[in-house]
């Protein structure tokens, strides 16, 4: 094995790969099981965007917080939320991360710094300002990251939050996951400006781009921003261009996409393939090592599905539990 040319040591690279693969496997499996009718509700898959969540989360620990979106599985997994709990949650079971009360769109685990997927577009941006504020008062060096899509980037609360974060100089990174579509609407229709990064200047925060299919591109760029934020340098805006492999939600026929678009992207812009090629070509990690992870991940996901299916449903008597802390 040759010298490691990457900014992450081998253990870290393996961890990053495992994260990405876990997300991918989780999503591919949901896609199949949803089609079978096993899974209720709205399910938005993150497959294709794994390098963003992973490239960012590799810099974070439990003290750091994230506020996610409706397309939150990838953020959850990479932030350390238990995969079994997540799968059970999506199946609506009592063993779910949120006791089956939230479902796919509301997975949270505050002990891991995961403040919740969110059914309301853009709602995470104000919340993460609060997380940043709390970190600032505690002086613990924690940062907050919020995610929003190219569509949600046009929500007023996201825009307001950038100004607030700048005014209060909060350790917060605004991450726009630009996958080119908001539901069926093209990003080019819904947003008048070519690059979201251009908005940073209007709020007095730096804005940077990253190719969201390249783990290393994301990792390096966001690393700078996070470091700056931890040191009191304030908020920043990061736009990652990514690919959504599946439809907007499961059940979407995707006729708004170009013919062959998904196939092309799967073949040429798959962040997992790109990662594998880089680390194996550099001779830092072997295909066999990655294949071994693939196997372990497949088992993990299989096991999570099996246990989710076997898990008990919430009890009707608990319908009204947890509306309040105590009532």
């Amino acid at each position, binding site marked *: 094995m040759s010298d490691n040319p990457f900014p992450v040591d081998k253990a870290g690279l393996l961890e990053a790969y495992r994260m990405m693969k876990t997300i991918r496997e989780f999503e591919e499996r949901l896609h199949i099981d949803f089609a079978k009718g096993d899974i*209720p*509700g*709205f399910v938005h898959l993150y497959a294709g965007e794994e390098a963003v969540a992973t490239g960012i989360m590799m810099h974070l620990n439990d003290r750091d917080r994230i506020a996610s979106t409706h397309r939150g599985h990838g953020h959850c997994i990479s932030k350390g939320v238990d995969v079994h709990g997540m799968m059970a949650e999506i199946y*609506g*079971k009592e063993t*779910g991360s*949120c006791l*089956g*009360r*939230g*479902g796919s*769109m*509301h997975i949270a685990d505050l002990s891991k710094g995961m403040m919740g997927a*969110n*059914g*309301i*577009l*853009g709602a995470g941006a104000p919340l993460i300002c609060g997380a940043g504020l709390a970190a600032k008062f505690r002086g613990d060096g924690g940062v907050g990251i919020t995610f929003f899509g190219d*569509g*949600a*980037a*046009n*929500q*007023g*609360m996201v825009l307001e939050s950038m100004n607030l974060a700048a005014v209060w100089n909060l350790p917060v990174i605004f991450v726009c996951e630009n996958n080119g*579509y*908001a*539901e*069926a*609407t*093209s*990003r*080019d*229709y*819904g*947003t008048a400006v070519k690059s979201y990064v251009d908005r940073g200047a209007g709020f007095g925060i730096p804005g940077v781009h990253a190719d969201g299919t390249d783990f290393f591109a994301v990792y390096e760029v966001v690393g700078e921003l996070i470091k700056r934020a931890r040191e009191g340098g304030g908020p920043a805006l990061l736009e990652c261009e990514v690919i959504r492999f599946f439809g907007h939600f499961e059940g979407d*026929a*995707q*006729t*708004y*996409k*170009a*013919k062959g*678009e998904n196939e092309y992207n799967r073949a040429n812009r798959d962040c997992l393939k790109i990662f594998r090629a880089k680390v194996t070509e550099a001779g830092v990690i072997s295909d066999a090592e990655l294949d071994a992870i693939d196997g372990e991940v497949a088992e993990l996901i299989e096991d999570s599905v099996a246990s989710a299916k076997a898990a008990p*449903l*919430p009890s*009707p008597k*608990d*319908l*009204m539990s947890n*509306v309040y802390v105590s009532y």
Partner: protein
Amino acid sequence: MARKLSYKMAVNEALDLEMTRDPTVILMGEDIVGGAGSPGEDDAWGGVLGVTKGLFAKHGARVMDTPLSESAYIGAAIGAAACGMRPVAELMFIDFIGCCFDEIFNQAAKFRYMFGGKAETPVVIRAMIGAGYRAAAQHSQMLTPIVTHIPGLKVVCPSNAYDVKGLLIQSIRDNDPVIFCEHKNLYAHEVDVPLESYAIPFGEAAIPREGRDATIVTYGLMVHRSLEAAEKLAREGVDVEVIDLRTLSPMDWDTVIESVEKTGRLIAVDEAHPRCSIASDITAFVAQHAFRALKSAPQMVTAPHSPVPFSPTLEDIYIPSAETIAGAVKKTIIQKMVAA
């Protein structure tokens, strides 16, 4: 000439008819065309559940996709209405009202009064309401009590395709802001609907079932659960009248009071949360205005005071069932027997 039409297609048909009739009617909403600017089909979606499908093909630029900016485009619909258009804006789920509430309750609702009667704001805001879709806490709410509370708004909640068509046409022609609530779990429900255009006036409740022993007052999906309950009870010899309010603001109090004066018993059924709900509104009004007619304690059947749970097992018991409604009706009857 009538034919079976679904609740969903009745929305589509009403929009189509009014757009054809009146060039000032325009539609806007997120993905109501559904594909704007994208490399594939421009109108791939026609709304997240296909409700507006085909309208772009027919009416072109008058059907507009919007950016993900509820304040901006709902506000724009209101502004355009104040300038002589008749916009119908879709707020995909009423749960998103928190992103544009000011424009609805402080602007549209108040213009006319605040400006001394010198403004008209003929805007319609269509929104999906209701639980049962496994869509969890932020995509399953009713929120009908919140909009009903606000003076200046009209609130419409049809229970079937016939009413959808007539009430949506009326909503578009109405010169006040209208919140038009579509229950997503009724979209597939079909009834006979005439081909031609017709408007159903606001403030006129329907009585889908007449009865002598008790009055159920309700709206939306709960009309069907109440009718189910009534059928069950009929088999047990209890003859229940069911009132479908159709519009929550204005309210057809006359029909409600008249019915309670006849039956002497009230059951107010609401899929919304209990506090300050449509159920409490009805019950309180009847208690004040038809107190002497009441033979027994009025009963309220509502969803619980909790967010909507995701898990299907919980969501199913969250939504008031025909059984619960029937139970409440029986309570009004047994009470009377006890008292008698």
